[in-house]
């Protein structure tokens, strides 16, 4: 008998590669091994043709032109290229970038680097629901502002920012708009031209494609956006990103985009129903809190705090049968809980008590039922062991205790 498959509710970390994607990729390893830049023989032409097709498939998903797709090694590289590339390219116009405290590290750390290079960066705070304040954004714009970078959907909470409104503000002030759309592309409609997004980073492995490939969308007309290359070499990708194209992975990402275009609308409805069922079941547990805005949220994500239960410990109760993610990092290197949840105003205790569930294409209702069961039992186990749960139940004010911080 086959081992029961482990429940995988960590699709925001990475998605399984769809078998249809794997199948599309296979011929490009051995049968068609060409370099897409080899212009003088059929191997090269085949590879180039395959890359062109993939570029079209991805452009179709986003309703943009294929010429606006730059292939990279992933979203981290695309974020780096967009931020640093714009900073260098538009240095004469200004040196100020606006972003948000809850962005992914690929954006935040690129901004930190830009600050070291002499740039100025404003990090907007978010409300308790994870959304930015549009008035605060607009007020932060100066005559030196060249770029506003706001992620489409947050990786930890699934919260979707008011993209259309941000696009309008950027348009009004003539500032470029960049978005890390890694968690949104292929799952909800992400049409940069309708929103006014000029640069958009995303990756293959969060949309059922392979790892090691990503894209930066770069708007080509009104305005014609350019970024300074961060990788020098053969001048691939219209000079913006040198390096031999990862043909099998690009083919896979193209196929993943084509599948997403067909199936994403229906899939979002199915996943939202599963997620809502999961959330309803888990909220039956005493002292449980949903993190982030529940109206503007990705359909497959639930981020929940179980009061006075440490997230990592809770995960150990699952017997390695359920894969989720915790906002708590209990290591000697880092006792800090998730900075995203802290930015939402969660106390450190609730941030340490959070679990992110991210469902996906291969998630089933049966898995949701099993997860509710195992979480209910796990939270009970951890609370039976928790001195602060005991104090809380006795009505002791935890704030009144002088903790020995370490």
């Amino acid at each position, binding site marked *: 008998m086959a081992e029961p498959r482990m429940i995988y509710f960590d699709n925001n970390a990475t998605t399984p590669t769809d078998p249809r994607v794997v199948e599309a990729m296979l011929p490009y390893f051995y049968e068609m091994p060409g370099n897409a830049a080899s212009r003088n023989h059929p191997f090269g032409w085949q590879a180039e043709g395959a890359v062109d097709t993939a570029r079209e498939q991805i452009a179709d998903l986003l309703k943009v032109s294929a010429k606006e797709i730059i292939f990279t090694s992933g979203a981290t590289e695309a974020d780096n290229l967009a931020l640093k590339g714009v900073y260098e390219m538009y240095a004469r116009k200004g040196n100020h970038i606006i972003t948000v405290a809850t962005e992914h590290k690929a954006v935040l750390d690129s901004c930190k680097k830009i600050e070291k290079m002499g740039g100025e960066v404003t990090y907007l705070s978010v409300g308790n629901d994870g959304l930015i304040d549009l008035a605060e954004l607009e007020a932060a714009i100066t005559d030196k502002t060249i770029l506003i970078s706001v992620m489409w959907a947050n990786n930890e909470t699934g919260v979707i920012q008011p993209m259309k409104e941000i696009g309008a503000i950027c348009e009004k002030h003539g500032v470029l708009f960049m978005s890390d759309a890694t968690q949104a592309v292929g799952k909800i409609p992400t049409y940069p031209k309708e929103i006014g997004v000029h640069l958009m980073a995303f990756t293959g492995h969060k949309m059922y494609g392979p790892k090691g490939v990503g894209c930066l969308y770069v708007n080509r007309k009104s305005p014609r956006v350019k970024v300074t290359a961060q990788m020098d070499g053969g001048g691939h990708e219209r000079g913006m990103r040198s390096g031999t194209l990862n043909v099998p992975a690009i083919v896979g990402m193209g196929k993943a985009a084509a599948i997403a275009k067909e199936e994403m609308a229906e899939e979002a409805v199915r996943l939202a129903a599963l997620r809502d069922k999961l959330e309803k079941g888990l909220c039956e547990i005493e002292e449980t809190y949903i993190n982030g805005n529940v109206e503007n949220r990705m359909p497959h994500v639930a981020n929940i705090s179980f009061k*006075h*239960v*440490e997230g*990592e*410990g809770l995960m*150990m*109760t699952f017997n390695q049968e359920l894969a989720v993610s915790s906002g*708590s*990092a*209990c*290591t*000697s*290197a880092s*006792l800090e*809980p998730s900075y995203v949840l802290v930015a939402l105003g969660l*106390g*450190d*205790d609730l941030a*340490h008590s959070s679990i992110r569930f991210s469902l996906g294409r291969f998630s089933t209702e049966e898995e949701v039922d099993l997860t509710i069961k195992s979480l209910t039992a796990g939270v009970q186990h*951890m609370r*039976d*062991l*928790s*001195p*602060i*749960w*005991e104090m809380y139940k006795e009505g002791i004010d*935890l704030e009144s*205790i002088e*903790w*020995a*911080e*370490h």
Partner: protein
Amino acid sequence: MAYSEKLLDHFKHPKNVGTLDKASKNVGTGLVGAPECGDVMRLQIEVDEETNTIKDAKFKTFGCGSAIASSSLATEWLKGKSIDEALDIDNMAIVEELALPPVKIHCSVLAEDAIKGAIKDYQEKNGLEVTAEIKAH
């Protein structure tokens, strides 16, 4: 990162979970860590005054699996030990017994602190010389 069988057993079937009467003269309580840091350990000992040995030990811990297992193991080790013997329990012994990975060594330090904290509380309560010294870290 795979955890040892011993660690998993202490986590799943923790020994000596519970609460002793904090107000009792024979009971010493050590409360270490902070909710903000993601771990809080409360370890209690009940001392037999005549023999100066620990006749019971209980704990409750909010924290990761390694923190829970470290405190469970500590309570097992404490029972039947004299105060002096209990003060000799070193965090590295816990690390070895549970095969804690390097990133979890702080959990064993916390358990050692909790032992020392409980002994200190007992000694102070009873007007004894305080011999428990909590390591600075």
